[in-house]
């Protein structure tokens, strides 16, 4: 069985959603990791869930990156193991330098919660190997600061290394300004590390793993993780 860990900050609020989705639809072996932990169990994949880690009043994820657990996550990532940051988790990955770039407030200056369409543009990493290239996924976003920013140089790097994983598009797959929910550079919804073992994404795949909630498209991300881990085991 593959072992998942879901990090719990005091202000996490998608921790239980991730736990539930993994437990019921992905793998039985899933545990919570408290933010004060300076030691973690043997795991195959760590999930940094959405929420407001420590209230996020300064900048999203700004304080979370100093928590003991993040040291562990960094070590884990350096070993080449899988780390996925969703929403606030993505923001924390940026703040802690595991992924490049930064988050700005949504250009509307308002929180936005709705289903969006995503185009999977890199399907060669462990998080997307079960998705076909250019497939369109319907996955909700729910954030106030998802306006991804990276300077032009960094952006060239991202492109060169094929680090852009998901982009916002419309239902037909057109990538345009109207389908960008937050103003992010190049409609970026998710990026990965150079090595491909760390993924950050704003949309919430854990919210659509259960048919009763309207979409199953999020499951593809978790199934990809499962598949790639099974292969590598």
């Amino acid at each position, binding site marked *: 069985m593959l072992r998942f860990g879901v990090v719990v900050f005091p202000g996490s609020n998608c921790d239980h959603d991730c736990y539930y989705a993994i437990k019921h639809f992905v793998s039985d072996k899933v545990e919570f990791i408290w933010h004060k932990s300076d030691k973690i169990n043997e795991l195959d994949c760590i999930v940094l869930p959405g929420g407001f880690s*420590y*209230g996020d*009043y*300064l900048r999203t994820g700004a*304080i979370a990156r*100093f928590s003991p657990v993040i040291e562990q996550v960094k070590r884990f990532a350096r070993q080449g193991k899988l780390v996925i940051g969703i929403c606030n988790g993505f923001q924390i990955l940026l703040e802690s330098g595991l992924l490049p770039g930064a988050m700005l407030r949504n250009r509307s200056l308002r929180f936005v919660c709705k289903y969006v369409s995503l185009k999977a543009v890199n399907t060669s990493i462990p998080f997307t190997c079960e998705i076909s290239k250019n497939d369109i996924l319907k996955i909700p976003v729910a954030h106030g600061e998802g306006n991804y920013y990276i300077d032009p140089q960094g952006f060239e790097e991202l492109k060169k290394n094929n680090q852009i994983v998901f982009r916002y598009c419309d239902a037909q797959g057109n990538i345009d300004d109207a389908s960008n929910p937050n103003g992010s550079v190049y409609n970026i919804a998710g990026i990965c590390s150079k090595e491909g073992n760390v993924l950050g994404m704003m949309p919430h795949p854990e919210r659509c793993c259960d048919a009763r909630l309207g979409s199953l498209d999020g499951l593809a991300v978790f199934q990809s993780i499962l598949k790639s881990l099974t292969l590598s085991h």
Partner: protein
Amino acid sequence: MNFVVDIVVTLKPSVLDPQGTTVKEAFHSMGYSKVDDVRMGKYMEVTISAGSKEEAQGKADEMCRKVLVNPVIETYSFDIKEQEKQEVN
């Protein structure tokens, strides 16, 4: 003439400042024990044109009171200069 108005809006001292409090606590837990207090506020740099410094002053004050500040919980102060402010760092 062009004026740059640097406006600082802060919560009144009697009003809870959750942002400041969390940042202070973060400093403490990171070992910066000598931080006694943190108050957070908004900073705005507004460029306006006006005939004189006095006019600019009056305008800025009015803009603060009418748009930027809710006097129930906030207080403000500003600084006017004729040319661009120099950035440290």
